[in-house]
């Protein structure tokens, strides 16, 4: 039997990929935008709708970064509102396990799960830096190992709280005494129609994979080649057995972009045009400064790369993931630029993430299906470059082709997110 594809829709928040200069780009904050994209996803019978999170505005050269889409609503609140205007679509919120507390967050997630009749999901992320911490009581800095330990204990504690009510609806006292959380009392929300909210874990790192294998229902990954996808897939699925889990208990869903055209050439042309819009001259210099760690504003984005060395300890960049080895990246970029005769902007376009799936609806459907049938993924989280209309063409043109070949549902079989994902209801551990 054809393996079924899982599809999710991402509403891009703070990012440099949304082409906000496009006249079709609308508000990133008005509820109408969220409603429109969610309704489109539900029309396409998607598994869920996905929101990222921000906890501090990013800075560049000590100033608030002003080139990207900035500003977004708080995820769980938006998803509760979306529960009113959708019936089946899963609702996934990214919420940090570093700057929240298990009792409050477990309660908010359980409430969303009830109010949506079993459609809630939690994408667990962590944060390490004191920069973000400056907005929170928690403050401070957690090293990488500690933040994963805290996150793991956070998820475990949330599950203990969700299980503190019996399936029959009786509340029982809970107590959790661990290195990060030492709490007890009574939880205020009974089990929901899907037992627990679905837990998503984002991460390609070794710690991320292990955490997901131990505990997550979905892993949200980067997209790579078919071969890289298969390797990742095999690695992660193999880790599940150690935790007494079945390979099907964890769905692997890379975040992907797409560009559709009437012909392959048309799609490639559109893709190139989108890349140019995403990498404005200002964004090209910014990307360069993030690697070089230096003020490069005097350089011409249409000119050659700077011949000076990076300064990795300048503190120029705040609130972004740091480049591991800026010297190596700079050397690679220089080589590429010289070999192909590329300007700064062309080099950034050439090296930065490109659209994952570019082609006709038919070829994109074929490719997506190939990834799933050959075990490089269980599905995809689609990231449109336009909000809120960026999924319309995919839903109208690609989804029907996937349905025709029997790789994607034509109707929701169940009402809960777990049922869409084919995940069993968690066993109650009273």
């Amino acid at each position, binding site marked *: 039997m054809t393996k079924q594809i899982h599809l999710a829709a991402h509403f891009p928040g703070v990012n440099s990929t949304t082409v*906000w*200069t496009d006249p079709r780009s609308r508000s990133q*904050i*008005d*509820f109408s935008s969220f*409603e429109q994209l969610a309704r489109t996803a539900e029309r396409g019978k998607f598994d869920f709708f996905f929101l990222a999170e*921000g*906890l501090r*505005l990013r800075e560049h050269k000590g*100033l*608030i970064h*002003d*080139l*990207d*889409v*900035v*500003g*977004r*609503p*708080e995820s*769980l*609140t*938006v998803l*509760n*509102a979306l*529960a*009113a205007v959708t019936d089946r679509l899963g609702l996934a919120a990214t919420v940090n396990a570093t*700057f*929240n*507390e298990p*009792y*409050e967050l477990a*309660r*908010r997630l*359980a*409430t*969303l799960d*009830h*109010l949506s*009749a079993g459609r809630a999901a939690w994408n667990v992320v962590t944060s390490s830096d004191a920069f973000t911490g*400056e*907005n*929170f*009581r*928690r*403050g401070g800095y957690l090293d990488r190992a500690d933040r994963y330990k805290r996150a793991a204990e956070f998820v475990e504690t949330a599950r203990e709280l969700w299980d503190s009510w019996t399936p029959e609806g009786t509340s029982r006292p809970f107590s959790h005494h661990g290195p990060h*959380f*030492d*709490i*007890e*009392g*009574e939880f*205020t*929300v*009974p089990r*929901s129609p899907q037992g627990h909210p679905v837990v998503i874990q984002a991460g390609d790192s070794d710690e991320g994979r292990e955490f997901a294998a131990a505990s997550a229902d979905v892993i949200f990954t980067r997209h790579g080649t078919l071969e890289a996808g298969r390797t990742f897939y095999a690695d992660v699925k193999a880790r599940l057995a150690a935790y007494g889990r079945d390979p099907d208990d964890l769905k692997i869903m890379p975040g992907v972009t797409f560009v559709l055209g009437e012909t392959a050439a048309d799609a490639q042309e559109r893709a190139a045009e989108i890349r140019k819009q995403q990498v*404005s*001259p*200002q*964004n090209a210099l910014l990307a360069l400064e993030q690697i070089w760690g230096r003020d490069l504003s005097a350089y011409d984005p249409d000119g050659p790369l700077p011949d000076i060395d990076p300064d990795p300890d300048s503190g120029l960049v705040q609130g972004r993931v740091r480049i591991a080895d800026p010297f190596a990246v700079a050397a690679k970029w220089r080589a590429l630029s010289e070999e192909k005769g590329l300007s700064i902007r062309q080099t950034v376009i050439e090296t930065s993430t490109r659209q994952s799936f570019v082609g006709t609806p038919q070829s994109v459907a074929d490719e997506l299906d190939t990834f799933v049938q050959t075990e490089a993924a269980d599905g995809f989280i689609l990231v449109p470059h336009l909000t809120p209309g960026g999924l319309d063409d995919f839903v109208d043109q690609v989804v029907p082709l996937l349905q025709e070949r029997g790789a994607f549902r034509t109707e929701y079989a169940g009402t809960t997110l777990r049922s869409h994902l084919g995940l069993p209801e968690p066993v109650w551990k009273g």
Partner: protein
Amino acid sequence: MSATRSLHLSAEIGGPPHFDAAHYVSLARLAERGTLDFVTLSDTFARPGPDALAVLSRVAPATERIGLVPTVTTTHTEPFHVSAAVATLDWVSRGRAGWAVDVSTGEAEARLFGRRSAAPGDDLWHEAREVADVVGKLWDSWEDDAEIRDSSTGRFIDRDKLHYVDFKGRTFSVRGPSIVPRPPQGHPVTVIDATADAARAAAVRHADIALVRTDTPTAARAAREEIRDRARAHGRDPDRLSVLAALPIELHTTADAVDLAGLVGDWYEQGAVDGVHLLPADVERDLGFVVDGTVPLLQHRGLLRRFYPGATLREHLGLTRPVNQYARAGESS
């Protein structure tokens, strides 16, 4: 009190816990049919019930005009998260959000978080004032026109219209700015039960609506005068702070609804209060009598409006949209 002003009428829709959205949607719609200014949904971490802000977010798209005021406590939460969530309720309701500020007392609630021991009420309310203060600053940390989408310079926002709040309180500090752009109402409406002293000290500084639990119009009038005087002493315009009597009600017959209209109308006409906040014993039953019995009588007496004149909760309450404290500072410098 000007003759054109309408008395303010609101109601609490909590009660025994429910976890289905339909229950709350139907109560909010009922209150909306009665053109009430807003509904409150009380909340605490200590007893069974869903997260109130989540419930009213779920209710928002299912209603059109009614103000939505969840209780959000300030003791164990992160002020930055509180600010973002209430601002987002304002976005998803298109300008109908408020929050009822409250504190979490007692060791049992503290044990749910395990971060700090229980503290005296005065300390908690001092902290609540700080939270209300920083939340207001975060709401203002984006000027209304901060998003510019200027393709010629590639800038999505004008960073000069975003502001660090750099707040340092006794128990927390927040750098800012907010992640959420300034909400539609500028500031969602702040409601504080000002019956107890410590809470009243917060209300006179930060509330748009102060509630007082009292049995008599004389006591209500005294409380109202005191609250207005103290607000004035803090440099506020007392006409921007409505005082509502919080009235427990239990209505079993149409005659009870008529009596309630008489009482509410009399208190209002005597200038004892700006309106009432109803606390039903049985919300489905009592709110039905209020909407079908009490409301039409108050409308007939010309005390209560027959329709919503505006779209936002501030408009229902006759409150203007607050000036942005940072934009104002920028202009004067």
